[in-house]
């Protein structure tokens, strides 16, 4: 029996069009292979068949994630697939995110294995690496020759329920997911051997690496404060009253960007905190206790520095996954840098 494969691709790889079509192409199912599916089918070497291809525009997916996912799952389910293969998306951010999201949903709701492919810096990697196998690809479509055979090989392994090895051997980006396996020696024998190596100063491999923290070099100080633009960022969850963007009280998946250009200070009437990690009474009563707009506005008027940046950025630091926090920081940093901000005050609770 051959396994049934469904392939997910975007409007560009389906030959419908580029960016101009990204928002228009709704999820659709075509029988058999489309575009890069031909190369994939060849690599599956008759052991699995690409029975259908689902196509969706990246822009449409990004803007209608819930509806698009539901529709794609429905189309997928109608094919009775044994596996979903998505992409590869290379370094295309929205395409990568869509591939990851579709794989995640297929695994969770249909219980099938999934494989996709992305460049290691694609934002989809950090968001979905735990939920699917992401084969490491080049940053552009020229890498398809290397990507497709690796994806096909991994897919066949998953279909045959063979043991999947480590990321570097199999070509996928480490998922950060723990899996059990049996070794030749008992844990005690391994510990005794590891101690001998550690004492001799020989290299040894821990079986569980502790979470690591990386560091960034400090940037140079602000030389000319009088001409500086200062921006405010907070992980204390301050947001406009009513939390218009629904920033989550914990495990935040988004951050907010709000205009304060006309504010002399924040107040109980216009702001509140979305943060669920502390008692919100004090921040709701006087939001400047978390985001000191009042004082900074005064100092701007006094000419201590030139300008308080027109917007502030906010999220909730409570239980927010490291990958999300990293992405928020990177995006906020880029925007501030582009707008000529000189330095940032970040407040946390």
């Amino acid at each position: 029996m051959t396994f049934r494969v469904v392939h997910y691709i975007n409007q560009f790889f389906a030959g419908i069009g580029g960016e101009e079509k990204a928002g228009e192409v709704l999820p659709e199912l075509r029988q058999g292979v489309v575009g890069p599916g031909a190369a994939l089918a060849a690599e599956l070497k008759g052991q699995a068949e690409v029975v259908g291809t689902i196509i969706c525009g990246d822009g449409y997916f990004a803007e209608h994630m819930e509806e698009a996912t539901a529709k794609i799952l429905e189309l997928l389910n109608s094919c009775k697939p044994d596996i979903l293969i998505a992409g590869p998306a290379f370094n295309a951010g929205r395409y990568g995110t869509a591939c990851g999201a579709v794989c995640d949903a297929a695994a969770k709701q249909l219980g099938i294995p999934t494989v996709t492919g992305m460049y290691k810096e694609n934002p989809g990697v950090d968001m979905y690496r735990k939920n699917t196998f992401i084969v490491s690809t080049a940053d552009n479509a020229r890498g398809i020759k290397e990507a497709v055979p690796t994806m096909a090989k991994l897919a066949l392994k998953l279909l045959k329920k063979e043991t999947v090895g480590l990321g570097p051997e199999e070509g996928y980006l480490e998922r950060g997911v723990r899996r059990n396996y049996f070794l030749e020696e008992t844990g005690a024998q391994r510990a005794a051997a590891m101690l001998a190596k550690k004492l001799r100063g020989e290299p040894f491999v821990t079986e569980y690496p502790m979470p690591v923290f990386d560091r960034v070099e400090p940037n140079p100080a602000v030389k000319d404060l009088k001409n500086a633009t200062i921006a405010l960022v907070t992980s204390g969850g301050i947001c406009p009253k009513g939390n218009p963007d629904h920033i989550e009280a914990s495990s935040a998946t988004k951050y907010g960007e709000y205009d304060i250009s006309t504010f002399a200070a924040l107040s109980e009437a216009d702001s509140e905190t979305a943060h669920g990690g502390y008692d919100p009474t004090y921040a709701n009563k006087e939001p400047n206790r978390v985001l000191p707009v009042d004082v900074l506005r005064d100092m701007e008027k006094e000419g201590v520095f030139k300008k308080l940046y027109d917007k502030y950025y906010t999220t909730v630091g409570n239980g927010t996954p490291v990958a999300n926090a990293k992405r928020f920081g990177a995006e906020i940093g880029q925007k501030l840098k582009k707008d000529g901000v000189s330095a940032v005050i970040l407040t946390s609770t």
Partner: protein
Amino acid sequence: MAERPEVFTNNAYLARRVAGECRFVEGSAFDVLVALRDRIHSGARLLTHPLCGNLRPYQQPFRSALLAPPSEGEPLSVCPSSLALVEEALAVYRSCQGRWALPGKIPAAVEEDYACVDAALMQDSLERHGLWRGAC
């Protein structure tokens, strides 16, 4: 003599055995941890570990802990190790959110066993502070 420690619990079985006042939290074990965290934010220190025994959050519906209140007249300072412990405990609970055993949602006989074990693990610590009233 240090000030009387504060007992936080959602376990009525334990609360009945505590001599004197008890901060009873209506709700889940997670809610107890949130109450502990807020109290730590206002300067209290943990005296007992915020995770219980060997039971996972999705098994044990009850959670109890002892806190030392902030010293009167001292400037407010948050105990970083207490905060780290309670945050780690919250993370353990969040990692299995949706599976928590909740008071009133498991068979009564089993719930009583859980209540008893939670109390038994606290008994020694309560006795040391003269807060254990004993069986009732």
